[in-house]
């Protein structure tokens, strides 16, 4: 096995994820994949990887790692996240910037306190065997990623290219924006007719809070209780990522990457695909509001979102000569102005 990155401290929930496992939902296999595909995609771009290459998904609290390969180029994608080089060469590399690390260096990934996830992309990707066409980890069934599980101290995640070339490191000169308070947009369905009119109104007018009982399968959200006007058991049908199902207790569950492929609770609405990455950044305790739009609007928003991501990707620029100081300043300035606007870079 090739040398790669050794996990010194695993963090809370660190897994290998790409954009997901497609083609097996008809056999009951969830898609899995990154909760925030945009952040993974941008991090991949900075190290020259295809957008959907597998990286580490880091939830809540970051791991500490040691470089066992001769050298690696890495980038962190995530709002407010950073990479902290430890030891003698201590330095903070902000998110949205690549950096080259040498054998023996140790580093920590810091997740912003207000954001659930961030991603570590590694140039050339991990040297792991895909499972059913994907490197995404599906922990419930124990397959994909690294041994089908969350990472533990002592794991050595092999990397394909174990000595990277010298080249300019890159940063995103036009950093992506994230508004933690922005409503999550949904379309109605599949079974909105199972709910009372009053409940449908409350769903879009009142806030919900993400409950601590949240994982990669879904978020339970608490807010106004939603009443079914018919039965709350339906004959199972398909589930799209972002579907919001409401069991008999009236408290919705927003279904995320590891959701089951089929389910038997009425679904009141579905989060639009352009807002799934923002949904994946929310963490337990965060407030969440929903706004209902039409499918045609969702399609327009998704196309706009894709265009803006491509613009961001076009504006990858070499890190200026004294990167630590200049970029830190730039980053802090952005962060501060961002907070005023209720946004985090």
């Amino acid at each position, binding site marked *: 096995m090739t040398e790669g990155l050794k996990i010194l401290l695993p963090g809370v929930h660190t897994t290998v994820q790409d954009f997901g496992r497609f083609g097996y939902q008809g056999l009951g296999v969830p898609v899995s994949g990154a909760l925030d595909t945009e952040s993974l995609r941008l991090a991949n771009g900075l190290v020259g990887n295809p957008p959907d290459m597998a990286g580490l998904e880091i939830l809540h609290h970051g791991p500490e790692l040691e470089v066992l390969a001769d050298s690696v180029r890495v980038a962190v994608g995530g709002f407010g996240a950073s990479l902290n080089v430890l030891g003698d060469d201590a330095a903070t590399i902000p998110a949205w910037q690549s950096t080259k690390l040498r054998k023996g260096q140790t580093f920590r990934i810091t997740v912003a306190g207000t954001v659930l996830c961030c991603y570590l992309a590694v140039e050339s990707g991990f040297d792991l065997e895909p499972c059913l066409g994907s490197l995404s980890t599906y922990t419930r069934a124990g397959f994909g990623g690294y041994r089908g599980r969350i990472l533990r101290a002592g794991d050595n995640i092999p990397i394909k290219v174990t000595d990277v070339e010298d080249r300019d490191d890159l940063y995103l000169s036009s950093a992506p924006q994230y508004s933690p308070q922005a409503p999550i947009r949904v379309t109605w369905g599949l079974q909105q007719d199972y709910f009372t009119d009053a409940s449908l109104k409350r769903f879009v007018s009142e806030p919900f809070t993400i409950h601590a009982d949240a994982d990669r399968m879904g978020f339970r959200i608490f807010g106004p209780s939603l009443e079914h006007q018919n039965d709350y058991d339906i004959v199972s*049908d398909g589930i799209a990522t972002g579907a919001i199902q409401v069991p008999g207790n009236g408290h919705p569950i927003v279904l995320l990457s590891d959701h089951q492929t089929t389910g038997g609770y009425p679904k009141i609405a579905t989060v639009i695909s352009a807002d799934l990455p923002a949904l994946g950044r929310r963490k337990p305790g965060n407030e969440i509001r929903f706004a209902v739009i039409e499918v045609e609007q969702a399609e327009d928003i998704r196309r706009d979102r894709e265009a803006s991501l491509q613009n961001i990707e076009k504006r990858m620029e070499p890190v200026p000569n004294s990167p630590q100081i200049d970029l830190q300043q730039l980053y802090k300035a952005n962060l501060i102005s961002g907070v005023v606007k209720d946004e985090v870079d």
Partner: protein
Amino acid sequence: MSIRIYPSGDTAIVIEFGNQIDRALSDRVLKAAVVIQAAGLSGVIETVPTFRSLMVHYDPLTVSASDLEARMRPLIETGDDNAVDGRKWFLPVCYEADKSPDLDDVAKRAGITTEEVVHMHSDHTYHVYMTGFLPGYPYMGDVPDVLCFPRREIPRVRVPKGAVAIATTLTAVYTIESPGGWHLIGSTPVQLFDYTAPQPAILAAGDQVVFTPISLSEFDAIEANVASGAYTLDYKAIES
């Protein structure tokens, strides 16, 4: 009930044929799945058949919901001419006490002997309606009326892999260890889901299954052969 086609967000369209568990409905769902997969429509990622509907997952950057619906509708309306290629599987199941924690209870509730439960459950050809809940977990029906009970009031935290279970009008096999609320009346040594295999799930929607009672020693022998890769499950092609 007429066909309803409607979106779930901007990444999936549901083609709904009805709202119940019904063989005729299931046949229409499975035929629609075949015709849509065969058509190779631009933007379609995959299809998920369920008891009563087909979910079509698609890429919204490639095709819009309205265009995709317009392309699918004529296919579905002529889809009933298509045959679904199914297989009839003979699945060995051990119903002995060690492997069937709820068998006594089911027999008591049904007012019959455990032997009669085993006979009724195994002397029957089941239709695989769909897979879901767990990778490869087959929802099969219909269970004889005498054996139809609601799910357990308190689900088990841990149901072992291979457990053969009944609830409502259905029977299933837990393909991996999982929480579960169905009544466990037997166990199969056959691995129905193997993520390292090119075809990871043995049973597919549209297949038929017959349970073959085996003894504990036969269970152990098959389990050993499964572990060494020397076991192949028997099937016959279904005449359509």
